[in-house]
């Protein structure tokens, strides 16, 4: 037998996959793939697939492919892959079993192939039986001109408790969102408050004292503290203008000193 596993023709036979995948399928004179060929060969043996000799089948397949390649070289790769596999299986079946653990035994491989063939054959028969059923529009017919039946829809409303509660919560939330908002007046120390504080404390301060000592203590909030500083400065300027106190600063950005008005 000429070796069908000669690598060179395989490369010739290899075609890149194309969009038209049917082309690979119907290549071999109407056969649909290597399993189809094997099944047909098995059928010619006229024995039950359960008793089929895979060895004989392999021989027939290899011969069949070899012949097919005489006719045309561009045999679809599927068929050649199967040929290679069968040649390999055949050699394993004929040679004494090698000690190999990484691979199923030759008998198991042969049985797997036989099982595949049985499975395909079963589906083929099933397809036949399916098509033998009377089909609607071919063998049997439904009424040609049905009058039709008016359909009434009874609506049944459904909602979960969760949806109900969410709806309630949502509308409450919506109302809050829709409510008008107003800007909260910021907390500040007013200039009036600062002036009152300075007036109250100044009589007890005859000598120069830093202005910041008149800040109210324990304000905490830095924003409030800043407003107190601003107000006390403005208040001190106002009181100086009125002649109630004197101010002095020894250097730019230096501390500001204050004392009760003393006639020079």
């Amino acid at each position: 037998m000429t070796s069908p596993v000669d690598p060179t023709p395989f490369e010739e036979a290899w075609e890149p996959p194309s969009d038209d995948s049917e082309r690979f399928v119907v290549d071999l004179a109407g056969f649909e793939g290597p399993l189809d060929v094997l099944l047909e060969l098995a059928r010619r043996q006229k024995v039950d697939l359960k008793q089929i000799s895979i060895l004989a089948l392999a021989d027939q397949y290899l011969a069949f492919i070899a012949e097919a390649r005489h006719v045309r070289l561009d045999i679809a790769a599927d068929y050649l892959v199967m040929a290679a596999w069968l040649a390999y299986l055949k050699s394993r079946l004929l040679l004494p079993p090698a000690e190999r653990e990484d691979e199923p035994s030759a008998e198991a491989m042969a049985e797997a192939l036989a099982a595949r063939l049985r499975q395909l054959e079963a589906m083929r028969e099933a397809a036949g039986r399916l098509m033998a059923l009377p089909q609607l529009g071919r063998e049997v017919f439904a009424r040609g001109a049905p009058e039709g039946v008016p359909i009434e829809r009874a609506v049944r409303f459904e909602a979960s408790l969760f949806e109900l509660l969410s709806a309630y919560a949502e509308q409450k939330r919506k109302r809050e969102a829709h409510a008008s908002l107003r800007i909260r007046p910021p907390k500040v120390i007013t200039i009036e408050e600062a002036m009152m504080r300075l007036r109250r404390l100044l009589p007890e301060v005859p000598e120069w004292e830093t202005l910041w000592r008149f800040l109210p203590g324990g304000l905490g909030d830095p924003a409030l503290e800043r407003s107190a500083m601003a107000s006390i400065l403005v208040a001190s300027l106002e009181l100086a203008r009125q002649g109630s106190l004197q101010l002095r600063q020894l250097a730019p950005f230096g501390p500001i000193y204050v004392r009760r008005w003393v006639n020079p």
Partner: protein
Amino acid sequence: MTETARHRRVIEALLFAAPEPLDEAAIQSRLPEGVGARDVLDALARDYAERGVNLVEVAGKWQFRTAPDIAPLLRLEIEVRRKPSRAALETLAIIAYHQPVTRAEIEDIRGVSVSKGTLDLLLEAGWIRPRGHREAPGKPVLWVTSEGFLEHFGLGALDDLPGVAELKASGLLEGLALPPSLEAVAEDGDDEPEDEQDSEPVRRDEAG
């Protein structure tokens, strides 16, 4: 089976499957010579005389038709499940929590007008019912939830509705977080109710 019965079966099937009424000539063409179409048709018409379907001749053509006395009974009921609209659910929730409550009161709470369709839908669903009138000008109807409401939502009693505190605890009622410089002003109530976009909740549902 007799020859006659066999012919009858074929013509029966033919008339049944035909998309249009068939005239005698068409039927005769399916019968062997010597068998009269008229005889077969008459026999078939007799077979079907008492049934729910009759074989009738109209304008010289033959066809099966449902018996005229049954026609009014021919309809199918199909149950369609549908979700109530958002507006309907909100209205239902307000009735559940504030009952008994008038429509005007529901509108006050929702801040939008409540369409008649919304209340109709809730009535149809069997979740609310009217119960008496408020002693006020116009004697407005008071709405309460029905037995059907408790059943549908799996509540033993109205007390089983979670309270507002529970809703808050479950996170359902979390208000909007306002910045500290802003505060909500309590509404005096009669802000003009914006016209409800969802005044036809049922329609909306169908569109969806």
